[in-house]
């Protein structure tokens, strides 16, 4: 399970500041020694390899261009147990799906550093002729083998590895020629682990972000990305954005410059558009406060991250709307799902269809922006009023150190995440959908969100309870978890009863 911190490192107090070069050198050596393929990582050779890649394979560059040109790129998820299956998948996503960014999702054993289990998964999958792992065991295959994947496609590749323990996977992935890596200290520790502490999570991602600056020194601008979708379960934009702000503040201390933020879609057109703008603005606002004016922070919008309907037609509407929301919201990229989402990992073909559907939806909505609407402005301003008091409190608690503040804030429940599996997280904050389809906060628990804002949330949620003839209690949060996966006969019945 969760790898304990190396001895020497644990002795150092947690701080947000950049890991000193000599300390990092030792950390890297210890890290790469943990599994045989670690020996394949040669930083100078890897940097040279990146520099040899054409522009269309560099995610950092592609994201900057897309942002400058107002485009919305598309990217799916996808990983299978063997190199061969993974290669075929990536080629289908590239060619049939027209993905702008091609992913490699790692399997969950790899994410949890159970490389022996991952090896069993590879072997069993090879025998069975089908994938028994939910992703590609990147560390087991190592740098050289994995590079053949980057070479099999014409687009930039990104590593998707939901984990609080990215140290070895990121070394292998970046060295293999992946130019993007998704993951961050707060977001993944709170949503992908049970026992990893926030402190450990922060230390692990400090490692990853520090690694990126080594590439930077060698002229390679890698893309880092924060998975602000968190537990994917009715995360109100403000909570996602709080983690975005804190995670980007942590990353820039290590020297990262090209840092994307992800937001799961709420499925409310105006809330999502407002969230995308607010996220970018608030991140930049707090970056400026600590003197950073040159950090590139593009926003990625994610197809609905909560429970999906089993009906493929309904799922199709979510996919397509997901493209619409991303395009209208002005996201720089969108991460897509498929019509198989409720059931299992999609086939390469279903995955590619999800991409094409999304791409067409983006094309159709390419010219629409809602920024001039009052409702948009009101919602964006509301998000600011939710985010700032909490972040300010976190920074205050850290006495100027964002890492320390974050740890303390989670301990105190000042920062809280809905539906978190992590024991270090109170997870008492409870969101629910309101009468107009906005995600609101039913119970803020100990989060210092202003009273007047909470009154507004409560009013909208009470209105929903009233309209549906339900009690105003936490069942509103539970029904909101199921809502989108309900069959249409329940969700949108024919309005007129017989007779």
């Amino acid at each position: 399970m969760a790898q304990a911190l190396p001895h020497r490192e644990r002795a150092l107090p947690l701080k947000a500041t950049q890991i000193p070069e000599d300390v990092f050198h030792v950390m890297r050596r210890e890290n790469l020694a943990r599994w045989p393929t670690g020996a394949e990582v040669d930083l100078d050779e890897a940097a040279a390899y990146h520099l040899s890649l054409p522009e269309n394979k560099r995610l950092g560059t592609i994201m900057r261009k897309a942002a400058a040109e107002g485009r919305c790129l598309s990217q799916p998820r996808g990983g299978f147990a063997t190199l061969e299956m993974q290669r075929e998948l990536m080629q289908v996503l590239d060619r049939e799906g027209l993905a702008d960014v091609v992913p490699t999702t790692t399997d969950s054993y790899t994410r949890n550093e159970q490389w022996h289990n991952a090896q069993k998964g590879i072997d069993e999958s090879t025998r069975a002729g089908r994938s028994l792992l939910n992703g590609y065991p990147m560390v087991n295959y190592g740098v050289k083998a994995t590079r053949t994947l980057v070479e099999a496609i014409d687009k930039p590749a990104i590593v998707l590895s939901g984990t609080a323990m990215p140290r070895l996977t990121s070394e292998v992935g970046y060295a293999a020629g992946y130019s993007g890596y998704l993951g961050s200290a707060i977001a993944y520790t709170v949503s992908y682990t049970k026992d990893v502490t926030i402190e450990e999570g922060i230390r692990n991602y400090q490692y990853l972000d520090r690694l990126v600056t080594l590439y930077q020194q060698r002229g390679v601008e890698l893309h880092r990305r924060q998975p602000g979708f968190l537990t994917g379960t009715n995360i109100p934009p403000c909570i996602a954005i709080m983690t975005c702000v804190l995670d980007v503040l942590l990353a820039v201390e290590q020297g990262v410059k090209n840092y994307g933020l992800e937001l799961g879609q709420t499925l409310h057109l105006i809330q999502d558009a407002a969230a995308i703008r607010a996220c970018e603005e608030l991140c930049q606002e707090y970056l400026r406060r600590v003197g950073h004016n040159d950090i590139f922070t593009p926003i990625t919008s994610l197809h609905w991250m909560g429970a999906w309907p089993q009906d493929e037609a309904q799922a199709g509407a979510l996919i397509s709307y997901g493209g619409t929301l991303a395009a209208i919201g002005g996201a720089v990229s969108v991460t897509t799902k498929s019509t198989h989402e409720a059931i299992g990992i999609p086939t390469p073909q279903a995955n590619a269809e999800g991409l094409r559907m999304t791409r067409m939806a983006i094309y159709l909505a390419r010219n629409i922006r809602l920024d001039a609407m009052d409702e948009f402005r009101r919602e964006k301003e509301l998000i600011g009023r939710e985010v700032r008091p909490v972040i300010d409190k976190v920074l205050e608690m850290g006495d100027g150190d964002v890492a320390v503040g974050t740890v303390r804030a989670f301990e105190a429940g000042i920062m809280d995440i809905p539906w978190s599996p992590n024991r270090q997280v109170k997870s008492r904050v409870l969101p629910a959908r309101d009468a107009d389809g906005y995600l609101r906060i039913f119970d803020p628990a100990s989060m210092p969100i202003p009273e007047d804002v909470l009154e507004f949330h409560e009013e909208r949620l009470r209105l929903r309870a009233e309209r549906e003839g339900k009690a105003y209690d936490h069942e509103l949060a539970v029904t909101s978890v199921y809502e989108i996966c309900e069959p249409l006969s329940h969700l949108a019945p024919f309005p007129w009863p017989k007779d």
Partner: protein
Amino acid sequence: MTTERAPDSRPKTLVTGVIGADTHIVGNRILGMALAKARYKVINLGALTPAEEFIKAAIETAADGIMVSSLYGQGELDCRGFRDLCIEAGLDDILLYVGGNLVVGKQPWPDVEKRFLDMGFDRAFPPGARTDAVIETLARDFAARAQGLRRAVE
């Protein structure tokens, strides 16, 4: 939510958790809430729980059943030998349910169900099962057990 109750007066104890390296806690937590409401005593081990911990908890609490969640697709690997572990621990007859998205990808449900029943689970539930259905089946199975059967017949 359901108002169904456990069939006899002594509340039954159920151990629940998400097996393996799986972090999907939402459905498991909601299921736990619903089981508690239906008057079961619920021992919830949370996400990322090794098979051994389920069995340890079942022994410690003299549980009547174990409810294994697996959502992330690797349940097929994680759940192998689960019944054997129970038998080794002397829990030969403990009621074993498994539910979630049990395998990788969209596969025909009857095949998947058979795979898990063959592993020794008493019941396997397909993706998206609702708590009401689970609780109703539990009540029927415990009633059958009170009559000396392994589980209710359809």
